């Protein structure tokens, strides 16, 4: 992964993280705000219900009092106050009066609490309402909740009692409104909210007792736990019901207990608030945020890409410069822009390459001087050996001429023979130096390196086991499926023979000569190892320097020629050696040598 890509990824991650944090924060804040709003709505509705409830109470008290104050009721009270009054006359009166006053429940009861007429339960005439005749300031009590027996079963009503007193007899007017769907329908609710009423008429939770303004609530069983909790501990409580797995179908409820005169739980009002609007709004916000985030991310992506490119361009230039230097372009320089750290780095890089170039120049010059010195030393050494016999022979000729003219002829013949022999030596020396200078260009063709190695070993077989010297054991580890490479076999053979000869020279006491071939990705490797005396690290460092030799009579050109051959094939050679253990030469040859440009550009 490039530095630019990394930088881009870092930018993007930072951007994503920022967007995510903002999104989560916005969502949380929004949700909190909506929850607060919902709670406020519920509380407002509960307060509204309480106000409405209070208004209903006043209304009920007013209507029941209106019935008690009516002329017909007063006449009834007067009639019933007489001895042996016939109450049966009034048995049907409650129905008509309740209809005219829009009351669901209405009972007329005599002084002892016996029902004279009942609208909700006409058949209960004659039965007593015991609590009605007990001493109580009904006017002060106002309206209250009470369970009422009707023909259809028990119900809960918002009731009021008024008393018409004639003489020492009371006529009780007991009336009110049924708490049910009509009552709920009279409540004005905001959109998304609804009111449910549970009437606590049975010993345990009964789904049919839970109604909304249209009738019994479907899925009423879902409320069982909460209603049961309310029944056990009447108090305001809040809970939530998830109607489906979709959060939009969640509904939160606020429960308000409805208590009777004695504190008994007669019912509970449940104010439901659908979270659909909230969730949908939340989703819209999230969708909008996602859209904005996506656009931001896209913009961030482009800006990050541009920024990363802008930031990494000097670094890339530096890297390109460094790569050029590594490839030998010592004149590579980096453009310097600005004064920031990258610019400082570029300046330092340029300064470093300049210094490296200068040092390399000095090193080349030093090596060149050292090479010339070595060459001079070798030439002097090579030439000094034949010159000494030449000088001695010439002096012998002069001495024979002056001191023994009779022997001069004989001396002359011997001396001229020696002179010619030494001159021949000198010519050979010059010829070897000339040969090194005139290394031929490789003639490339397919070469099976294993065959070449086997041929060389076979050539040297006689010398490995020659009489009078310790034996050398050749070991071949040749990979069978070694691919052919493009090379000049003659040059390769010459280089490998050179290495084998060096190995034999390194093992005067005999040993093991190992040749190994391997390949990888079409390239081949050759290892030539001996178990000879080994080399010192210093010797290893200078081993491929022309005219350097560790042998008594070597020219110092053998390994230089080997390195030259390997180099001409685009390969490389290295040496590993340990003193007293042996030496190994590693040659790596590419499947195909690089195209070498000629001096004239071909």
């Amino acid at each position, binding site marked *: 992964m490039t530095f630019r890509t990394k930088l881009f990824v870092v930018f993007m991650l930072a951007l994503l993280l920022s967007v995510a944090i903002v999104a989560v924060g916005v969502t949380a804040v929004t949700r909190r705000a909506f929850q607060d709003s919902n709670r406020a709505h519920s509380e407002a509705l509960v307060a509204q219900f309480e106000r409405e409830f209070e208004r209903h109470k006043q209304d009920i008290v007013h209507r029941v009092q209106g019935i008690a104050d009516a002329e017909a009721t007063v006449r009834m009270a007067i009639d019933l106050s007489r001895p042996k009054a016939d109450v*049966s006359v009034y048995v049907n009166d409650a129905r008509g009066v309740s209809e005219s006053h829009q009351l669901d429940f209405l009972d007329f009861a005599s002084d002892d609490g016996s029902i004279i007429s009942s609208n909700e339960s006409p058949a*209960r*005439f*004659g039965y007593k309402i015991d609590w009605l005749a007990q001493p109580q300031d009904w006017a002060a009590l106002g309206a209250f909740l009470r369970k009422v027996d009707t023909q259809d079963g028990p119900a809960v009503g918002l009731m009021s009692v008024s008393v018409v007193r004639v003489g020492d007899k009371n006529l009780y007017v007991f009336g009110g409104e049924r708490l049910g769907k009509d009552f709920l329908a009279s409540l004005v609710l905001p959109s998304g909210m609804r009111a449910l009423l549970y009437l606590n008429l049975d010993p345990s939770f009964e789904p049919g007792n839970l109604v909304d303004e249209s009738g019994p609530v479907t899925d009423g069983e879902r409320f069982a736990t909460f209603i049961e909790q309310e029944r056990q501990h009447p108090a305001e409580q809040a809970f939530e019901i998830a109607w489906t797995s979709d959060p939009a179908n969640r509904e939160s409820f606020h429960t308000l207990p409805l208590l009777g005169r004695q504190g008994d739980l007669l019912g509970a009002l449940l104010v439901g608030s659908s979270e659909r609007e909230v969730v949908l709004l939340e989703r819209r916000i999230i969708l909008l945020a996602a859209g904005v985030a996506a656009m931001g991310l896209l913009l961030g992506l482009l800006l990050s890409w541009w920024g990363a490119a802008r930031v990494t361009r000097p670094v890339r230039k530096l890297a390109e410069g460094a790569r050029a230097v590594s490839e030998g372009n010592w004149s590579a320089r980096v453009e310097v822009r600005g004064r920031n750290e990258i610019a400082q780095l570029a300046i330092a890089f340029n300064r470093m390459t300049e210094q490296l170039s200068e040092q390399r120049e000095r090193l080349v010059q030093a090596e060149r001087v050292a090479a010339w010195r070595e060459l001079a030393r070798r030439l002097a050494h090579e030439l000094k050996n034949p010159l000494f016999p030449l000088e001695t022979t010439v002096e012998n000729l002069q001495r024979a001429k002056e001191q023994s003219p009779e022997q001069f002829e004989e001396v002359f013949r011997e001396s001229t023979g020696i002179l010619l022999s030494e001159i021949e030596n000198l010519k050979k020396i010059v010829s070897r130096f000339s040969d090194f200078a005139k290394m031929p260009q490789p003639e490339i063709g397919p070469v099976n390196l294993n065959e070449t190695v086997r041929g060389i070993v076979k050539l040297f077989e006689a010398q490995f086991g020659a009489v009078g010297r310790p034996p050398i054991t050749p070991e071949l580890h040749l990979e069978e499926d070694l691919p052919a490479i493009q090379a000049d076999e003659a040059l390769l053979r010459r280089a490998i023979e050179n290495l084998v000869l060096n190995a034999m020279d390194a093992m005067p006491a005999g040993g093991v000569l190992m040749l190994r071939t391997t390949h990888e990705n079409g390239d081949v490797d050759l290892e030539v190892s001996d178990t000879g005396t080994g080399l010192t690290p210093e010797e290893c460092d200078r081993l491929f320097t022309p005219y350097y030799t560790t042998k008594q009579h070597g020219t110092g050109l053998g390994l230089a020629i080997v390195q030259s051959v390997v180099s001409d094939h685009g390969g490389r050679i290295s040496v590993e050696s340990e003193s007293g253990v042996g030496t190994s030469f590693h040659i790596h040859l590419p499947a195909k040598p690089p195209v070498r440009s000629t001096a004239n550009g071909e």
Partner: protein
Amino acid sequence: MFERLAASSLFVAVLLAAAGPAEPARRPKYGGTLRVEIGAVVSSLDPAAVGTAEESAATAGIDSLLYERRNPEGTYAGVVGSGPFRVVQFEPGRRVVVAANDNFPGGRPYVDSVEIQMGRPPHDRLVDLELDRADIAEIPPEEVRRALERGMRVSVGLTDELVAIVFVPGRPFAEDARAREALSRSIDRPAIVNFILQKEGEPAGGVLPQWSSGTAFLYLTAVNVAAARRLWSEISGSRKIVLGYDAGDSLEQSIAERIAVDVREAGGAVAVGATKPGLLANEDARFVRLRMTSPQPRDALERYLRSLGPILGANADPVQGATPQQIYDTERAIVSTYRIVPLVWLPEAYGVSMRVRDWKTPAPGQGWPFADVWLGDAP
């Protein structure tokens, strides 16, 4: 005894009221059409046709009027009875018109014709009477008091119709004597008479009225809450007795609802429901109305036994003799099974317009005395 005296006094008072205010003797006038409205619906003039008690009574009433019958197109169809009228128009379930038979051996009726409207609701009958659109109209007993308060002329006859509850054979409670007795003892019959019937009727403990048998006072009609509670507590299970009433009968509905309250107060449970066909198939008990077709207790009792045979089962022993004791024993045997629970006796009541003269409320088993009625001038 009190009940007997009260009923007799009431009967005399009603007869006096029906006779109208005292006025100088006048000769009856012939002519006119007597307009009569009844609640029953007669779909066939054949007395043998099976119908409700009310329909059968109405059919018998109409039949008693007839001497001859004509086809719908008015052609003579033959003598069918010995009555003073002949049918000239019959619309089943709605209307029947009978015309005076000039050849009636007992003498031609005073009115030329009688037009009987059937199936009229009580409220409509009262309104028609008040607006002089009807001359005679049947009035439910519970409406008598209101009619009197509105100044109408009302004629109330003897209590000749028994309202009772019978247990449906085969249903679980029909075989549970304690449940049947508990139900009977839970019912406050006087309250039903006083409040629902507005005192027009009598609590019924037996199946024969006091004026007929003279022994009705021997049956207890007051509620016995203590006994009822004890019996209900002995009945295992919490199943309700399902009591069915005629969906079109408001009186039965009111009584049924009162019984439900009484039973609940006594610790039992009764569910009431209308018995329109297919509406309430699981009723344990239902209302039945038995009309006295004869003032003779033995005749009435035998008729009851014939009609209640399937309900009474093995307890439907025939009347062994004609003495009051034997009749009482038979009646007691029927009542003590509690398979029939007598509730109240209802009287026949008619509203009569002021132009109707010589109207007498018919006695049980007698037909309508339309032949004796004549129409005078309205006051």
